[in-house]
Structure formats: structure tokens, C-alpha cells
């Protein structure tokens, strides 16, 4: 910029600067607003779901305790108890974790530490691809293969069961767990391995005593992500759950998890019934918050 020689020029440059300045200020405002939008949508989502879900308890005198611990869900007779669904969701999630986490974890260890580079190069991207497959397709597979398989192999009266849900969810979380955990294990510095091996610890010993503990936070993330996928899954579960309204007492009972209840009935629910589905959503929501919190605690403790 040249040094202004007379007043007229000063004014012109001033104006140009002013416009530039305005533009800068305005655009930074716009950027801020965009960033705040995500806060706004979160507030809106929580606000709407809680407002709708809390309505029957606040304004219509329904008991929240009866809602949580009630065993009867008969909307046409004004009975709203979601205890069977809470139990179903918890059992299904825990079951899927028990099967999915060890297999997923061991697979990721295998790919990162044992498999030859060439094998890992083929399998890892393939599993990554599977993480992206729409969950509905896992449900289709479950209905066409797993349900008849359970029915025929174990002589069950019906294949639509808690066990079927657990298997579908476990399969579904596999790619997520494997992909994330493998990345975490690969990120462990080579020096850890070399140090441990130099001390005479066996290859397998090194993996389980040194590498896996070192990758712990990444593995935790993998589990949390897998968990999130399992507990929030809806459409695949509807197809294999049987959707019965009983408190499951065995793996062969058909169940209705929380997500399924919402998707099954949202289409035609109105009034209090619809509000109660939002209340079901609140319970699901709190469920996820609690689980994330607990797992964060666990990994924090492990970190110390």
C-alpha cells in the first residue's frame, strides 16, 4: 500500500478498508453461527425428545415408576410399562459384547501382530468395508440364516429370540471393533515390542502383557463404538427379535428392545401413546449416556 498523498486518497482507502473490515467481521460471525448450530441442534433434539417424553408424567399424571418398572405395554388399554424392553436391551447389549468383543479384539491383534503383511493388507480393508454395510442387511441375513439355523439346530419353537438378536448385534459390531482396535494396536511404538522381546518375553507374552495394555485407550474406544452401534441398532433387530412383550428369562425368549418398540409403533402412535414412545427414547438416551460415562470411568481408572 502506498502512502496517501492527499485527502481524497485517504478517504478511498479508508472506505475500502472499512468494507474489508466489515466483510471480515461478518464472515467470522457467520462461521461462529455455523459452529453454534451443532449446539443448537443438540439442544433442540434433547429439548424436543424430553419435552414430548416428559409430558405424560408431568401433565397427565402417569407415574414414571410404573413406566420404568411396569411389565404391561398395551397402548390401546392405556398401559405403558417398558420394563421388559429395558431388560431386553440390557441383555442383548451385554450378550453382544460378550461374544463380539473378544472375537473382535483377538482378530485385531491377529491382523496387527501375527498375520503376514500380505494377508493383513487384504483382510483389513475388507473388514473396513463391512463396517460401512447398511445394518438392515445384517438383519436380512439374520432373518434368512440365523433364525432358521437356531430353529433347526437347537430345536427351538421359534428362532426369533434374544439369542438371534445377540448374534446379529455381535456380528454387526465386529467390523467396528476390529478396525478401530487394529489401528490402536498398530500405533504402539515399535520400541515397546523390541524392548519386551529383548528381555526374553515370548512373542505372545509381549502381545498380551505389553502391547495390548499400551493400546488400552484405543481398544476402549473400539468397544464403546461397538457398543454404541449395538445398543442403538433398530431395523436389523426388528427383523430377528420377535418383538414379544415379555421379560426375557432365557436366551430363547423372543424380545422387544427399546429401539424396536419405538420404530414398530411410531408409525401409527398418537397422543399419549406417541409421548410414551418419546419417553422410551429418553430411557434409551440415558442408557447410552450412562454406559459411555461408566466406560470413560473404567478407562480413566485403567490409565492411572
Amino acid at each position, binding site marked *: 500500500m502506498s502512502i496517501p498523498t492527499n485527502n481524497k486518497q485517504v478517504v478511498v482507502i479508508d472506505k475500502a478498508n472499512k468494507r474489508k473490515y466489515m466483510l471480515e467481521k461478518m464472515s467470522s460471525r457467520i462461521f461462529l453461527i455455523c459452529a453454534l448450530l451443532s449446539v443448537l441442534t443438540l439442544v433442540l433434539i434433547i429439548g424436543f425428545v424430553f419435552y414430548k417424553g416428559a409430558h405424560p408424567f408431568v401433565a397427565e399424571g402417569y407415574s414414571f415408576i410404573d413406566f420404568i418398572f411396569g411389565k404391561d405395554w398395551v397402548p390401546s388399554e392405556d398401559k405403558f410399562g417398558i420394563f421388559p424392553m429395558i431388560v431386553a436391551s440390557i441383555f442383548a447389549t451385554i450378550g453382544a459384547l460378550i461374544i463380539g468383543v473378544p472375537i473382535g479384539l483377538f482378530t485385531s491383534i491377529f491382523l496387527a501382530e*501375527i498375520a503376514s503383511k500380505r494377508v493383513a493388507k487384504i483382510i483389513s480393508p475388507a473388514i473396513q468395508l463391512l463396517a460401512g454395510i447398511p445394518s438392515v442387511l445384517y438383519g436380512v*441375513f439374520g432373518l434368512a440364516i440365523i433364525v432358521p439355523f437356531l430353529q433347526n439346530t437347537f430345536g427351538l419353537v421359534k428362532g426369533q429370540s434374544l439369542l438371534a438378536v445377540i448374534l446379529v448385534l455381535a456380528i454387526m459390531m465386529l467390523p467396528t471393533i476390529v478396525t478401530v482396535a487394529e489401528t490402536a494396536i498398530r500405533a504402539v511404538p515399535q520400541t515397546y515390542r523390541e524392548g519386551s522381546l529383548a528381555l526374553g518375553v515370548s512373542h505372545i507374552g509381549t502381545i498380551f502383557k505389553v502391547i495390548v495394555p499400551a493400546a488400552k485407550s484405543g481398544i476402549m474406544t473400539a468397544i464403546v463404538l461397538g457398543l454404541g452401534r449395538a445398543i442403538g441398532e433398530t431395523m436389523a433387530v426388528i427383523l430377528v427379535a420377535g418383538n414379544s412383550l415379555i421379560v426375557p428369562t432365557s436366551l430363547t425368549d423372543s424380545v422387544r428392545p427399546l429401539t424396536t418398540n419405538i420404530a414398530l409403533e411410531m408409525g401409527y402412535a398418537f397422543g399419549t401413546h406417541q409421548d410414551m414412545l418419546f419417553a422410551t427414547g429418553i430411557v434409551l438416551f440415558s442408557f447410552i449416556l450412562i454406559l459411555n460415562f461408566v466406560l470413560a470411568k473404567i478407562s480413566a481408572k485403567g490409565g492411572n
Partner: protein
Amino acid sequence: MIQLKDKLLRGLLWISAFLSVAVLVMIVGFIFYKGINLISFSFIFGDYSPTGGGGIWPMIVTTIYTILISLIIATPIGIFAAVYLQEYAKQGRLVRTIRFATESLTGIPSIIYGLFGAVFFVTTLKLGMSIIAASLTLTIIVLPVIIRTTEEALKTVPLSYREGSLALGTTKLQTLYKVILPSAMPGVLSGIILSIGRIVGESAAIFLTAGTVAAMPDSIFSSARTLTVHAYLVTQESGDIELAAAVGIVLIVIILVINLSATFISKKLNRATNK
């Protein structure tokens, strides 16, 4: 003793890996085996027919609509938000709040988004069960993805670029548009591609906001069904596993293409930054 344990663990590792791969191969194999016979030009590009034997073109068009609309809205907002977080904001409570909000949005199950969409976009904003209502719901779902990947991409732009540009007397905004964003473009693109994957795979949220009309949508205000919802409904309503599998093949191919282009772009990114 230790050797035995080692052997056992090694065996377990092999078995687990074999199980994972076997199960996943089985799923893809099952879908292709069941559905491949139905795949034909007229299946993919033909109009749907309620009496059977029709194609899935209306569902493909609906899927493309939802992808386009959600991305048109989510991309600029997501990029601007990331620019704010990365280039403008001072670290503090506000930024922490925004980060917390975006991270929380990532963890919400899609059925909750569906509930929200059904009451907010469909009922409160009176959009009805429609492509636009579903797309707006999807916008919220993919927003955190775009924000995060864009942020990561902005982080990789060297500080020297910014300093160099500013030293030439450009304003912050000019630097942003002429230097920073173009350098971050591949990262942004891979975020967009990831979002497409998420939109294509979504079912519960769309089911509750777009409805299930099996016909070519007239406009974005029509109710319609996407490919995933179609796969679900044909399984649920008519038990037609073969048709569902055929739709599944189309979906898997789309996901494959998306994945390949993401890898391609990130490779390009690496090459570009290495130079």
C-alpha cells in the same frame, strides 16, 4: 507351562480371526448368492411395480435426492463451523461447549434422530413425511462427521502457508479462501464421502421421516423410500429375501465405490503433502 499358554492364546487368535473373516464372508456371499439373479438393467433402472417384478429406480432416485440435499446443507455449515473452531475461535468455554455438542451428536442412536425428525421437521415445521424432512434429519446426522474431518484437514495445513499469505498483505478471509481451504480440500472431500456412506446406510431415521411410499418422488416434498428402507420393507412385509439381497448388492457396490474413492483421495492427499 508358559509355552502351553502361548500356544493356547495363539490358537485363540487364529480361531477368532478365522471366525470373523468367515462370518463376514458369509454375509457378503449370502447377499450376492441370493440376490445376483435379480440384478439386471431393468431391475436397476426400471420403475417399481406393486404387483411384483418391477425395478428399484425410484428408490435409487430417492437415495440420490437425500444425499444431495443433506450434503448441500451440511457441507457449507460443517466447513464453516470447522473453520471457526480451527481458525477463529480462542480456546475456552465456548469452544469446549461446541466440541462437546458435536461429539454428543455423534453418539446419539439414529432412532432418536428419527424421533426428533418426526416431531420437529415432519410435524412442527409441517413438512410432512417427505424427502426434505428426512434430508434435514440426515443433515444433523452427518454434520459432526463433516466438522470433524474438516477440522483434521485444516490442522494439516502448515502454519507457514497462513503466515506467508498474511505477510503478502491479504486479509484473513482472503487467506482462508485462497490458501487454507484449497489446501484442506482433499480432507474435506473425504469427509463428504464418509457422509455419503452414512446417508446411504441409514434406515431408522429415514423410515420415521420419509415414510414408505414406493413410487417415483414428484418433488422433495413427496414421501418416498430409500434403498435401505426398501430392503427392510420387502423383508418385513413380503419376506422376499431375494429382492432384499438384490437391493443389498446395489448398496454394497455403492459403499465399495465410496470407500475406494475415499482411499484414492486420501492417497492423493498424502502425495500432495509429501511434495
